[in-house]
């Protein structure tokens, strides 16, 4: 193929490495300066922002948890009053679920999925930028509201009528409901990007059976988001309508139904758990494969288990409502379905065990976190089986037993793999290694602190301590264990503090990382650490599930892409046969303006419904600016 020097359609074919790097950098890099930062659409920059922001929210949520443990360390303590305490536990739950757990998993996917499938940017990169700004705005709305004593005080589940117009005075509940809208918009945007990236932008040859397990798990997660989020969208919108314009969706006196809220909320709320857990499963599979020096046993079974978990996730929301007074026969069905989800989860555990047995484990920090995950998550799964049983649940529902259970599932099942994943992918993201010594200390402190903090809560729950109480009376037999739990929480907090110190320190002064420090086999390790703005100088061609371990020296690549405009390969869904050269959008400031306009509309609408009318004008202007044809191929994309 000839190289045309007219500057319009210069292809990479035949260009030397240095020339190629030079030209691709010019095309793909983000301009420096504030304006460049604000208009960037690079998935790596946005993904990194997302991850950092989510960890900031994790730290803030952790501070709230410590405040609660201080208050609960003694009976009838008066550190925090009931009004503030209710805000704190609502903020803790809302923050951890909506501002940390879901966004951080998506953030990892935003960063990693395009690299793992061997493409140059995520699909719909401007939507990606928009989703980050929306997420940031929603988080700031919630936290600033909390700072001025307007934080929601209705629980992260916001049950009506307590969150309804009569019982939730002021704007607190509206802020909760509107914050949901922000995170819904950003989560749905990312989910759509990931589905399209996985289906249409895989490297040539990466057929469905060669997709890395982390990418599979993010694909299933994205579908869960797309299917579950509309339920909470309806719920929060109808709640705002009830509160703001006087509708009666949840008012029994006018034919509304209180339980309708619970159904809508948990139809989202249960899949939410798997939206958080499934990405972690993908991380575990990736880390296990790398540190046992062999592929995960039972690839097909693992993928089937992921899909089965995703499907079953929508069939067990009622187990959150076992004591709401639903018909017993219906509840029994949900007992069976809740128990059944233990089967795909068990299958995954057994496959990892088989992998570890057959492989040659290397005990580095990421792998330690995976071992911690196995120990803790299996306990969480066992208590999950317990609360799936209706009679068992009538005794432990809304007690500290359940608090212990879901922390075992969410911290053990998601945060441990996530921390492992940070240690694992940190060199790829920053180009520097985290400290192995500190990493072992971090793991030891968090693992010990976590178990000492949360295991006694099982006992507290069985001893009759309900959730969401701001204190308890001295005559109740709970004070000893509560003090123990509060002290143990300090160990846990120390572990997280050390983690943050290690991360900040390593990002500045850590040892420089090579392209593939762990000897891993997936595509993100085929490029430098950190990757160049264009990810891959030439897009790789995949011939197996483990492209790097089968032929580490000579990874076949595709050529023929333009170097002076942003281009990537669109491939077929099943076989990943290359179909077309597709342009990828250029940097743009309009996603930021659109997010700001949407933010104004959403916050204003807490105060008057007319905001939806007048606020839509700046939103329209921003969207027109965003989509205005500028005549370049990047903008047509």
């Amino acid at each position, binding site marked *: 193929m000839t190289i045309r020097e007219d500057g319009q359609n210069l292809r990479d074919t035949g260009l030397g490495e240095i020339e190629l790097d030079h030209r691709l950098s010019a095309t793909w890099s983000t301009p420096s300066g504030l304006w460049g930062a604000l208009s960037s659409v690079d998935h790596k920059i946005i993904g990194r922002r997302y991850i950092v922001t989510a960890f900031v929210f994790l730290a803030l949520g952790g501070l709230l948890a410590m405040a609660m443990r201080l208050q609960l360390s003694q009976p009838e303590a008066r550190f925090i*009053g*009931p*009004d503030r305490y*209710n805000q704190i536990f609502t903020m803790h739950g809302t923050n951890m679920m909506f501002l940390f757990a879901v966004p951080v998993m998506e953030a990892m996917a935003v960063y990693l999925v395009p690299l793992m499938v061997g493409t140059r940017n995520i699909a719909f990169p401007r939507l990606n930028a928009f989703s980050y700004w929306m997420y940031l705005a929603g988080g700031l709305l919630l936290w600033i509201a909390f700072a001025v004593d307007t934080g929601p005080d209705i*629980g992260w589940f916001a*049950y009506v*009528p*307590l969150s309804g117009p009569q*019982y939730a005075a002021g704007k607190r509940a509206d802020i909760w409901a509107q914050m949901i809208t922000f995170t819904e918009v950003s989560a749905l945007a990312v989910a759509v990007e990931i589905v399209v990236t996985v289906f249409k932008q895989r490297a040539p040859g990466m057929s469905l059976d060669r997709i890395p397990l982390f990418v599979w798990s993010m694909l299933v997660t994205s579908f869960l988001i797309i299917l579950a989020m509309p339920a909470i969208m309806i719920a929060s919108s109808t709640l705002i309508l009830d509160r703001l314009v006087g509708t009666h969706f949840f008012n029994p006196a006018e034919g509304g*139904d*209180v*339980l309708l809220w619970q159904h809508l909320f948990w139809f989202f709320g249960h899949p939410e758990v798997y939206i958080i857990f499934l990405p972690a499963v993908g991380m575990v599979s990736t880390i296990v494969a790398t540190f046992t020096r062999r592929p995960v*046993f*039972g690839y097909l079974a693992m993928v089937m288990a992921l899909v089965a978990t995703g499907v079953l996730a929508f069939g067990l929301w009622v187990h959150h409502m076992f*004591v*709401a*007074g639903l018909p017993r026969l219906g*509840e*029994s069905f949900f*007992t*069976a379905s809740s*128990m059944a989800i233990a*089967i795909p989860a*068990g*299958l995954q555990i*057994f496959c990892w*065990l*088989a992998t*570890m*047995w*057959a492989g040659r484990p290397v005990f580095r920090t990421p792998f330690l976190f995976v*071992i911690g995950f*196995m120990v803790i998550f*299996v*306990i969480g799964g*066992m*208590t999950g*089986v*317990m609360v799936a*049983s*209706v*009679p*068992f649940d*009538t*005794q432990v*529902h*809304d007690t500290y037993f359940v608090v212990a259970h879901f922390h075992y599932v969410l911290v053990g099942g998601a945060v441990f793999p996530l921390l492992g994943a940070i240690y694992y992918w940190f060199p790829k993201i920053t180009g520097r290694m985290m400290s192995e010594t500190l990493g072992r200390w971090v793991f030891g402190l968090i693992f010990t602190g976590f178990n000492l903090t949360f295991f006694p809560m099982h006992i507290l729950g*069985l*001893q*009759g301590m*309900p*959730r*969401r*109480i*701001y*204190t308890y*009376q001295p*005559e*109740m*037999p709970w004070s000893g264990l509560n003090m123990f739990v509060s002290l143990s929480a300090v160990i846990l907090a120390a572990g997280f503090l050390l983690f943050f110190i290690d991360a900040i320190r390593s990002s500045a002064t850590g040892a420089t990382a090579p392209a593939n420090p762990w000897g891993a086999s997936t595509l993100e390790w085929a490029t430098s650490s950190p990757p160049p703005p264009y990810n891959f100088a030439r897009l790789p061609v995949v011939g197996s599930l483990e492209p790097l371990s089968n032929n580490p020296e000579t990874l076949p690549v595709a050529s023929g892409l333009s170097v002076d405009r942003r281009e990537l390969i669109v491939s077929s869904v099943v076989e990943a046969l290359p179909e077309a050269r597709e342009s990828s959008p250029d940097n743009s400031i309009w996603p930021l303006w659109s997010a700001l306009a949407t933010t104004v509309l959403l916050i204003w609408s807490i105060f008057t419904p007319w905001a939806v009318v007048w606020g839509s004008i700046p939103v329209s202007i921003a969207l027109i600016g965003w989509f205005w044809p500028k005549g370049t191929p990047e903008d047509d994309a």
Partner: protein
Amino acid sequence: MRTARILQLSIIAAVAGCSGNQSALDPQGAPAIHVEHLIIGITVICAAVWLLVMIVLGWALLRKRPSDSSQPGERSLTISVGSAVAATVIIITGLTIASFYTTRGIGLPENAALTITVRGQQWWWQVNYADPDPALSFQTANEIHIPVGQDVRVQLESADVVHSFWVPSLAGKQDLVPGRSNSLLLRAERPGIYRGQCAEFCGLQHTHMAMMVVADKPADYERWIAAQRQNGVMPTDPDAVAGKVAFLSKPCAACHTVRGTPATGTTGPDLTHIGSRKTIAAGLLETTRGSLAAWIADPQTLKPGNNMPMVPLTSVELRDISAYMESLK
């Protein structure tokens, strides 16, 4: 086993004083006993499974690897994983069936001997003992008496937000949902005081929304019922007489009822026999003249956000009203 239980009970009673025990692990009624058996059964099985998984995990990680780099057969791994999944299915099925049978065991019988209506309010429990003869019906608050060894049906309603009725030693919990009516089987096998607490977050004072279930021997129960049906006693103690006057002339009477007096307010708990109840303010304090005075003097410090206002009283009025309250046996 039985002596251990009694010993355990007496220790708990000694520690807990009059507050009664509130633990799912100390069941004193048939429904709670059934559930406790299930709790112990599932916990033992799950603990065994966890232990097994941990042993396999440790072995998989630490086993001595053969020096040659030969990979173990995929076939034997498939068989192991397959049989582990099959074992999971069997265990899960067994637990599901056990759960179904326990559910049937704790269901509400067709006709219970006694029906009590409990109405949840922010943040106390209104208790109604209805009788076909309206003169024999009465209302009380935060304390439920039931006869030992009898099935009692508790009808659960809510006046405002969702609450949850939970007396762990007698039965599992059940929500009180506005606009719906739920019911629960309550049964105590031996006399005693069983503490319960609201289990569904219901606002500022969700924490201090407890109730006492007192299981009486049948004769005691009849005596209690007969006493509760009476109007509030006429005070004889001079302090209490003055207290009654103050009670009726101050805002107290606008929210509280004392049967047999002009006080007929329905916003707050019925006080006709408050002196006979174990606790005041929904399980917050033991009923003594001192705690009554403390509560009346400053309810917003003891239970911030509750709906009882701080009524300005002179110290004499405060002393008299607490004396009157205490005399309402």
